[in-house]
């Protein structure tokens, strides 16, 4: 029952932030490994179990602003709950699919989600709304210190924190922002602009990470280089590029307003109409129309709704939907229930 409560809670990172029309959320991830035992992918089941024991015990001692961590061992979790964790971005696909002993420690507000026995023994994640990466890093670093007081992490002077994959060695840090770029997509600029980011040492992915599609016009930007640059440098660089991205998106929005305002208004009002009235909505439709609706709200073309864009987007995914309703749903039933949830959310007026 307690676990149910924890999973159903609203994740902090999905909250709306004032004055952040493009940057939806940010994440800091620190990869750490225990000294003297192999990395998870070559660990025996027994070894993985021991690592999990040690880490789960250390994690449950940690308190962040009065919020204690709860450890969930994925091996004893029903598949639907694993799916909910995945959809809410609290665990990775790798962790969800792994068979070895593994888990995640969460705070009540899900701002902190520490994965155990993913590709590395420890993956500290801080997920927050808006773009304050520096604050997220501060919190992740505190958790890192608290853990390091209990266990020994692999660290070498020249190579920094050692990780299973050489792409993470050094700081072990992946900083990322989730951005909503509908106008750049609509004006065909997104491919060109995002394509140049690789040359700037950044990676671009869709809403659900590597290999996922850019549904809902949402993209995740993150640093590629982890060795030879300090955490501050990495964050500063990502923020500078993100600011440019925001500027391009905002310019594209204004250009559309001036040059194609009727087309834009029509698209946005249609989206609102469908979200408020449809009796069946597929995931893809939902994400597309929510993206248009959010654009319209940001541009002041339609009144805002009471609920958060990101929360609606995430909570109407199959796993979350079935978990909230506490029943298994056939795909068609999902579309029906999804439309019901969205209709309810869209009819709430902001401030009422």
């Amino acid at each position: 029952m307690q676990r149910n409560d924890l999973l159903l809670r609203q994740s902090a990172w999905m909250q709306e932030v004032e004055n952040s029309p493009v940057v939806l959320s940010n994440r800091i991830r620190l990869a750490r490994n225990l000294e003297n035992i192999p990395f998870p992918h070559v660990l025996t089941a027994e070894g993985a179990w021991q690592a999990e024991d040690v880490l789960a015990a250390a994690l449950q001692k940690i308190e962040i602003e009065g919020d204690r961590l709860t450890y969930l061992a994925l091996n004893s979790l029903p598949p639907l709950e694993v799916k909910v964790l995945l959809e809410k971005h609290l665990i990775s696909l790798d962790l969800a699919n792994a068979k070895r002993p593994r888990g995640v420690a969460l705070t009540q507000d899900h701002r902190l989600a520490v994965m155990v026995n993913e590709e590395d023994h420890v993956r500290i994640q801080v997920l927050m709304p808006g773009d304050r990466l520096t604050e997220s890093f501060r919190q992740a670093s505190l958790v890192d210190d608290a853990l390091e007081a209990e266990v020994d992490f692999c660290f070498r002077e020249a190579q920094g924190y050692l990780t299973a994959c050489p792409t993470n060695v050094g700081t072990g840090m992946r900083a990322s922002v989730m951005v909503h770029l509908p106008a750049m997509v609509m004006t065909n600029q997104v491919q060109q602009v995002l394509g140049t980011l690789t040359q700037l040492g950044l990676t671009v992915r869709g809403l659900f990470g590597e290999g996922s599609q850019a549904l809902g016009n949402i993209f995740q930007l993150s640093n590629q280089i982890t060795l030879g640059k300090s955490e501050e440098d990495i964050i500063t660089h990502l923020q500078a590029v993100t600011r440019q991205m925001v500027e391009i998106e905002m310019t594209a929005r204004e250009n559309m307003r001036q040059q194609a305002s009727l087309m834009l208004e029509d698209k946005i009002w249609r989206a609102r109409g469908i979200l408020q009235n449809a009796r069946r909505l597929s995931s893809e439709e939902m994400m597309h129309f929510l993206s248009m609706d959010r654009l319209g709200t940001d541009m002041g073309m339609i009144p805002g709704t009471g609920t958060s864009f990101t929360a609606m987007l995430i909570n109407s995914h199959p796993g979350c939907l079935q978990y909230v309703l506490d029943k298994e749903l056939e795909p068609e039933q999902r579309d029906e229930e999804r439309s019901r949830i969205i209709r309810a959310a869209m009819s709430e007026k902001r401030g009422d």
Partner: protein
Amino acid sequence: MLCHRCGQREASMHLIQTVNGKTRELYLCEQCAKQSQEMNPVFHPAMGVAGLLQALWGFNPAVNEVQKEENCPVCGVSFTQITRAGKLGCSRCYEKFEAQLAPVLRRLHGGGQHKGKIPQRRGAVIRDKMEIKELKERLQALIRQENFEEAAGVRDQIKGLEQTLGVGGDANAKE
């Protein structure tokens, strides 16, 4: 892999796109990717980390010269296995396969040593060493400026740190 569009150049980009609810995967070369006007692409730096590593290691002639059957003494993983998995087996692998790893780290991160956070507890020694290094640089600068008064203070600071570190342990013993 050859580009799906022109079939001539090596593909360097992986695109996933949705057209009418159907997902298509495309591997394109840089030129074709630029020309492509399709909506909602997501770029991947390469075809997954393992692919990237294989590509990188494939370019590295050292791989073929090294006796492939040597294994890491701690985790027992061979270099061939590392290449296949795209992952090292344990922290010792970093030392064991240092030579093969160096060009990969250079390609991935542009070379350079770790900068940034040092572990709070276990890194105390490293932090002290780095501070000593910085102080020594400052000392040299002060001497060049003939600011001997301040230099003396910095020198004492260095001595103090070196003592806590146990650098020149016999000097400690004499006192």
